[in-house]
């Protein structure tokens, strides 16, 4: 399958910090989850791919367009929807006016067609009924959906979502998952998140980033399989475990190299993720 995004050797430094270190990726249609601890470089990678910041080294293309040139960057932006970690709004705008404003910025200049498109995306994120309400009067979850609508307007082929479910209650998160899954049906979505459940439920592929480097790139099932035979149950916390915690049943769930005869458990995606981070030298015990 032809990749939507093809990146090779992306590197970027902020002062003395190496935010990205030789990152290479190929993203195809569907939802790809980007997992990693705080400071792993997830947001930086997303900002680079969204053409918000150029890499120090390396190159990438989006739908065949190279953002290294001004014209190529404009072409990339025509194919791009971006939901940043902290989307801000002009609070006096209504939901409709704000998405319309973004649509104008995206060069949808025909008023009739633009308004139809704005109504379409607001319906898509289930905000059709409140489109005339001022953004400052909307709940946090609704505002996040306004931001998603702004990212979706113009029907971009590549959607970049930076932790879109942070701060949402379980119901809102569930609704957001539906929206992301729907958005991923016809396009390429890159979803940065701390929530392994989001990745398990939504993504056909997962990339783990730590220390600015790609530590894993594969399917959620492959990441889960990394923890096979390394999760076990015990009545006491196993001191030899990389991580261990008491579960709701009172027994301990341990992660690491199990002792002989241990009561092995079915691993989860989170187990695979934590073990991958441990291999990268990250602090698993803190998880």
């Amino acid at each position: 399958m032809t990749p939507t995004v093809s990146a090779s050797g992306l590197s970027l430094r902020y002062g003395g910090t190496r935010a990205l270190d030789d990152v290479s990726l190929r993203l195809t249609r569907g939802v790809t989850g980007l997992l990693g601890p705080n400071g792993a470089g997830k947001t930086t990678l997303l900002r680079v791919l969204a053409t918000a910041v150029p890499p120090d080294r390396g190159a990438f293309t989006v739908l065949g367009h190279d953002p290294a040139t001004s014209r190529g960057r404009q072409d990339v932006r025509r194919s791009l929807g971006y939901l940043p970690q902290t989307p801000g709004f002009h609070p006096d705008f209504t939901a409709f006016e704000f998405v319309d404003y973004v649509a104008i910025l995206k060069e949808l200049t025909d008023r009739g067609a633009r308004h139809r498109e704005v109504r379409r995306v607001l319906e898509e994120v289930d905000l059709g009924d409140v489109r005339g309400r001022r953004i400052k009067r909307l709940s946090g979850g609704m505002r996040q959906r306004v931001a998603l609508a702004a990212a979706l307007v113009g029907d971009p082929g590549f959607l970049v979502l930076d932790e879109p479910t942070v701060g949402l209650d379980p119901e809102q998160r569930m609704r957001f998952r539906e929206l992301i899954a729907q958005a991923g049906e016809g396009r390429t979505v890159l979803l940065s998140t701390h929530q392994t459940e989001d990745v398990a439920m939504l993504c056909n592929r997962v990339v783990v980033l730590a220390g600015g480097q790609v530590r894993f790139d594969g399917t959620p099932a492959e990441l889960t399989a990394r923890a096979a035979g390394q999760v076990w149950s015990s009545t006491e916390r196993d001191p030899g475990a990389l991580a261990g915690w008491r579960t709701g049943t009172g027994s301990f769930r341990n992660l690491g190299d199990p002792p002989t005869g241990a009561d092995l458990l079915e691993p989860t995606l989170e187990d695979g993720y934590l073990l991958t981070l441990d291999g990268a030298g990250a602090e698993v015990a803190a998880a």
Partner: protein
Amino acid sequence: MKGVEGDRRVRGVSGALVWSVGRTVPWRALGAGAVVGLLLVWLPRLGDGPPDPWLALNLLRGAALAFALGLAFLLDDPARHLTVPVTTRRWVRTGLRVAWVAPVAVLWWTAVLALIPEQARPPVGAVTLEAGATAALALAAAATAVRLADEPEPGPSVAASVLTTAILAGLLLPHRWSLFVSPDDPRWEAAHERWAVVLAAAVLVWGVCGPEPLRRGHLLRRHPRGAVPGSP
């Protein structure tokens, strides 16, 4: 042909943007600065007789500074992060904001000058140069903050910097470089040559920082494969 098409697209977007961008202008901050400026020059009318020309000149300077503090908020954009990867370039949006504010500023300054009795009014051209330079300085500071920092609304810190700079310039500039002189001072002409330099420098900085924000430290860095520096 494609270049022409690109220009047409920019013109079309600018036309459609005018009203929306007008609503993103921080009118409250600008209005507050304008009102404070008007009050400053109006206050002496409460007393008897025309104000002292030196007082009138400094009130005009104070009014210009108050308006400039409002202008420090002009480039604030709460939706900045969300609108990073759009095709309409930032200079188009900035240009439209300035176009909205410029006629308001001209009307306001005319009103401010009119509030000063004619016999106390300093040379209009010179004091307008001072006001223009102060405004340009505030816009240059705002553009620099947008370019070098990730903060969507740097207005408060920019306004604080402009105010501090103005106070320090009044207090610390050496006698021979003084900017704040009276019309009967022999340094009046030289001071306004310096005001012209301040205006030119501010416009230059504004021009350099205006088009596309860059990540901190990227200004002097060479880019592989050409002119990537960019964001919105």
